[in-house]
């Protein structure tokens, strides 16, 4: 009986010939990422709870300050300082204010075949390059940092067979929201979402990141694409080499299988307060908005900035909308500047913030008020996620978000 990509990655990390869903294995981790959402707690535990504090291999660690940058309070600053001082003391790679952690990881670290723990739920993004990335808590992260290992319950894999090509004006984000709407917020709990089929060939690494990133919103442990030529070319451009390139075996076992015809996908929106409340975008048109957000580890890359800029070019953001544009990384920001996109956004009246999690994380930058409505390319629309408990968040594509910012109410790009 064969293995899926995810099983092969775990087998390699566990030093086992074969693993199967349901097994628990001890694995050697290739890399660990921790951000300012929890690292201060990890550092406290390191100092206060370990009998023998040590780091198995500092070179495998990456610390990234991205959630609350620039800092909004002395307490935030103190938590980030704790992280910075620890990184400095232990010679851990440290990034601050240079972008959202998953984007930094993809740009600089992730390689096909690696098993990566990140103390952030959207670590599943790394599957876009054929790596197994999964979100863990800070205790797991600490255990991994100390021992270099962890335990994993081998998850079942569900196959998502993608066919055809997305129509003009429809984006991978629409596709992934549609998938989540179809299978539900726990539709892939503890499972791996594996994307395959001829439709995959039409998706860039950027597109694949959009899909993998949101897998956790269906409860998945991770999502994965085969590291094909597109992925390997992307990797080579960045001067990195794969750890291992895996394909799923013909006779691999899947817990389920879905087929999505990309040509049938339409612009959608996830209504408040759940990511799986997905409806055609047309159904929510006309909802008055107070803020629009284009950014996040899901949708703040150059592709999405291009889409947004094309829509707001020679137009003005509505007077009553705060339109936050937040590139996912400094690299994305520089490229967007080079391409004239930042200039377009500036001239349209948008607010362009430094690369960071911004209002997607919702605790400070761009917070929304009582009964306010946000349309966002962020990852979640949970109750109160972006501000006041009575506020509402709609999730949609960059195109829908940009068009809505111009109109002052939710609308799709073709309606402008």
């Amino acid at each position: 009986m064969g293995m899926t990509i995810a099983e092969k990655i775990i087998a390699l990390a566990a030093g086992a010939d074969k693993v199967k869903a349901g097994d628990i294995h001890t694995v050697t981790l290739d890399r660990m990422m921790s951000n300012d959402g929890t690292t201060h707690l990890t550092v406290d535990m390191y100092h206060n709870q370990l009998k023998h504090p040590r780091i198995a291999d500092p070179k495998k660690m990456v610390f990234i300050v991205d959630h609350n940058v620039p800092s909004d309070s002395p307490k935030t600053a103190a938590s980030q300082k704790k992280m910075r001082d620890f990184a400095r003391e232990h010679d851990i790679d440290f990034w601050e204010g240079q972008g959202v952690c998953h984007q930094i990881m993809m740009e600089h670290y992730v390689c096909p075949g690696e098993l990566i723990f990140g103390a952030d739920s959207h670590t599943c993004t790394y599957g876009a390059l054929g790596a197994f990335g999964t979100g863990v808590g800070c205790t797991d992260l600490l255990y991994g940092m100390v021992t270099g290992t962890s335990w994993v319950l081998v998850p079942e894999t569900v196959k998502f067979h993608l066919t055809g090509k997305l129509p003009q004006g429809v984006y991978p984000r629409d596709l992934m929201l549609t998938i989540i709407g179809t299978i539900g917020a726990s539709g892939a709990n503890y499972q791996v979402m594996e994307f395959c089929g001829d439709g995959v060939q039409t998706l860039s690494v950027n597109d694949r990141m959009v899909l993998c990133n949101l897998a956790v919103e269906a409860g998945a442990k991770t999502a994965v694409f085969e590291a094909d030529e597109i992925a390997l070319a992307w990797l080579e451009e960045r001067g990195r080499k794969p750890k291992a390139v895996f394909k799923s075996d013909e006779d691999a076992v899947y817990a389920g299988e879905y087929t999505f015809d990309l040509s049938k996908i339409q612009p959608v929106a996830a209504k408040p307060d759940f990511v799986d409340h997905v409806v055609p975008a047309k159904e929510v048109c006309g909802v008055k908005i107070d803020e629009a957000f284009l950014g996040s580890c899901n949708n703040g890359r150059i592709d999405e900035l291009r889409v947004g800029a094309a829509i707001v070019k020679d137009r003005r953001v509505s007077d009553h909308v705060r339109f936050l544009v937040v590139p996912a990384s400094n690299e994305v920001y520089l490229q967007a500047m080079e391409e004239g996109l930042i200039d377009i956004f500036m001239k349209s009246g948008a607010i362009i913030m430094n690369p960071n999690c911004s209002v997607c994380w919702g605790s400070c930058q761009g917070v929304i008020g009582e009964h306010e409505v946000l349309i966002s390319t962020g990852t979640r629309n949970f109750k109160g996620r972006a501000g006041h408990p009575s506020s509402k968040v709609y999730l949609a594509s960059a195109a829908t978000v940009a068009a809505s910012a111009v109109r002052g109410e939710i609308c799709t790009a073709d309606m402008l």
Partner: protein
Amino acid sequence: MSVGKIFKFHDDLDTDQIIASQYLLLPTIDEMKVHTFESLEPEFPKEVRPGDFVVGGENFGCGSSREQAPRVLKALGVQAVVAKSFARIFYRNAINIGLPVIVCKELPDAVDSGDEMDLSLTEGTAAAKGHTYPCTKLPPYMQRILNQGGLIASLNKEEV
């Protein structure tokens, strides 16, 4: 384990509801815990007593990987979380910090906030309102971590 009061929550209860983003960078769990369930049940931190239970529906703890979520519950003295199903990261985090998370398909629909419940981890049962409901047992690997008081405690023990 002993008898405790139930605080019941809905399906797909996400980690932002357990502890909102703006409190995650506070220096300690003790400073965070007073904000537990702030937008849903602001009185929860004051009303919950050590030994009480949180009961949820499907997909409890979905959303972010913030370990602060199970930790504020534990810091407030919550004895265990019982739900129809759990989101993966929350489940793993809870076990790692020594907070029992119990899958029980029937009990959540049969109880309300304020009801009393008795949980037996050894028997794998939860009892409320005169009924006893079977719970799914943890895999031995996870049960061992829980028994040792969490992942870091188990690490420290292994290194004796």
